[in-house]
């Protein structure tokens, strides 16, 4: 096992709204080691983005971290910093935000101001993070980093406004900005979702190459199982704010255990070679205010055990080394519950 960089424990981020409480992130555990890529997958609304935003406390109002720890280990010899406890307005979290952990978004336009050149915005980031650096050097560094992320003619493009770049090029510029502080952790939230597949392939290749070069860790968030398969060494599958399964990517693909993971993989056209019809998951995700006493997936689950899955929350079971599943099918917990013989 490598060195720990981030350890999320029982994180809960809720939105208290007039209509009810949205338990966007409802008790997740996740670790990221130095230099590795971890993926979070799940359907729309399952809490992937809020989970990632919670790490830097940049979730939208009125989202609040209501429980849990986010232990960040910048230095092996020192005790970790619990990011969940920091005041989001104080310097220390600000410093980590721009300097050590950076974020790339699905829509690069949100990261850039439309009225300044991309060069000025990236230079700004260099200047903030290096008090000794002068303007001229910052510009030179900016051109270097634009070149590094594969932007052709960086000496010219440095003076371009965001709208003058193609979607793929803007995404590269945003990656350049995120890298300008040489982060220890890069959080990429659907970094290629709005791009064509040919451009997506370039961006994924770029992220891999940069990771090899700089050794940073990557937390990649996506609804696309193929992207985690391409990028991540570990994957966590989310459903309605909770983890249902996590582990090594090869292990999860070869031996998926949770009925939701199995059903997701089975429903992919890429896996159904000749079948007349695809496998489906019945029903759809309930609205976010829904509170279930049992397992969140029980209403849609083909294998749910009546009297158990709809009555209690499953706890976690380790089905193989490092492969964790939250499901009664694998748990001893069901003995003593209900009166099912099995």
């Amino acid at each position, binding site marked *: 096992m490598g060195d720990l960089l981030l350890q999320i424990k029982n994180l809960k981020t809720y939105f208290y709204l007039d209509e009810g409480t949205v338990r966007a992130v409802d008790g997740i555990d996740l670790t990221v080691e130095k230099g590795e890529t971890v993926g979070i997958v799940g*359907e*729309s609304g399952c809490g992937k983005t809020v989970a990632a935003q919670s790490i830097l406390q940049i979730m939208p109002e009125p989202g609040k971290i209501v429980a849990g720890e986010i232990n960040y280990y910048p230095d092996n010899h020192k005790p970790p910093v619990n990011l969940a406890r920091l005041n989001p307005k104080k310097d220390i979290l600000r410093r980590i935000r721009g300097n050590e952990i950076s974020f790339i978004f699905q829509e690069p336009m949100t990261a850039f101001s439309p009225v300044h050149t991309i060069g000025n915005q990236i230079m700004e980031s260099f200047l903030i993070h290096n008090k000794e650096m002068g303007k001229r050097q910052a510009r030179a560094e900016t051109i270097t980093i634009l070149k590094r992320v*594969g932007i*052709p003619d960086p000496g010219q493009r440095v003076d371009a406004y965001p709208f003058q770049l*193609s*979607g*793929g*090029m803007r995404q*590269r510029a945003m990656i350049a900005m995120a890298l300008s502080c040489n982060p220890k952790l890069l959080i990429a939230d659907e970094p290629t979702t709005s791009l*064509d*597949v*040919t*451009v*997506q*392939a*370039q961006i*994924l*290749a770029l992220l891999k190459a940069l990771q090899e070069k700089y050794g940073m860790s990557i937390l990649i968030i996506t*609804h*696309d*199982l*193929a*992207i*985690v*398969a*391409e*990028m991540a060494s570990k994957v966590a599958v989310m459903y309605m704010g909770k983890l249902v399964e996590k582990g090594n*990517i*090869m292990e999860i*693909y070869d031996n998926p255990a949770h009925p939701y993971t199995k*059903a*997701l*993989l089975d*429903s*992919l*056209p*890429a*896996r*159904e070679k000749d079948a*007349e*019809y*695809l*496998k*489906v*998951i019945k029903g*759809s*995700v309930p609205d976010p205010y829904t509170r279930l006493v049992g397992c969140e997936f029980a209403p849609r689950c083909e294998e749910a055990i009546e009297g158990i899955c709809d009555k209690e929350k499953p706890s976690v079971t380790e089905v193989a080394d490092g492969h964790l599943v939250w499901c009664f099918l694998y748990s001893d917990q069901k003995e003593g519950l209900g009166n099912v013989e099995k």
Partner: protein
Amino acid sequence: MLKNNNGQSLLKIEHLRTYFPVNKGFFGRTQKYIKAVDDVSLYINENETLGVVGESGSGKTTLAHSIMMGIKPCEGKILFKQGDRVLDLKKLSAKELKSIRKHIQMIFQDPFSSLNPRMSVRDIIGEPLMINNGLKRKKLDEKVIDLMNDVGLDPKYLRRYPHAFSGGQRQRIGIARALALNPRLVLADEPTSALDVSIQSQILNLLKRLQQKYNLSYMFISHDLSIVKYISNRVAVMYAGNLMETGPTGAIFPGGLHPYSRALLSAIPSPDPHQRNKEVILLDDQVVDPADLPSGCVFHPRCRYAEDICRQKKPHLEPVNSSKGHRVACHLKEKVSLN
């Protein structure tokens, strides 16, 4: 099951061009055109699905709207088989066009914005039946309920409004409306892109089932190549308004022949992590200016094979000898095929 293209295709388009005028230069004096669809010829047989792929801006949606005559193409023919007659939609009077158009329906990407929020499900699905067939009250309800059953919507929701439905259900409403007038051809423009993975497969199965039940033909536009591979009998690859390659799905996947198809198909990530780091043909991240397309082959600035002829002369779609129904627009297709 598939018939030859011996003039019996349900739809055949020939040399279709749809241009949008743009004004460039001082005071808009030089008239330029965005060649959104540029000399495209293709056909769709009965009970067949033609998949259309290509990057954003390559002209897929414009092609669909041109076939519907929602955007009027400036040149070419749109031949539609009606009984034993073949009609050119571009030559019909407005009245004739209206009666033919009900045989061609469209399904849209965004089930949220394509449904009128102030209309109940009954009115959304029933509207075409009211307008075209004059159905009313009970007769209309009955027909709408049949359609709801067809697409897997519970008829008890007859009087509900779109906001009370999930994305997948809304897409079912859109499909039911498209089916109301018994179309022959359905043009589906990214019908599952806005849906979750778990809902996507429900909708794909539904489209397949309906195709068999009603003998429908589909043009299926999608940027998700694994879906196109799954659902299509034949595939057409577009690039900058041009058709680069077309042929049976088995001939296009897994590799294709055209250098652009090859790059496109190599870029699809696999959900199987054991396949990671397979060789991807990376393309230069160049933007094609749609109002100022490259000379010769529109793909030449990004093509790794390009030679002088590619810069000078536009290649035409030509049959590939070794594989039936497979056509490619590339000067160097023999050379590329050896690679």
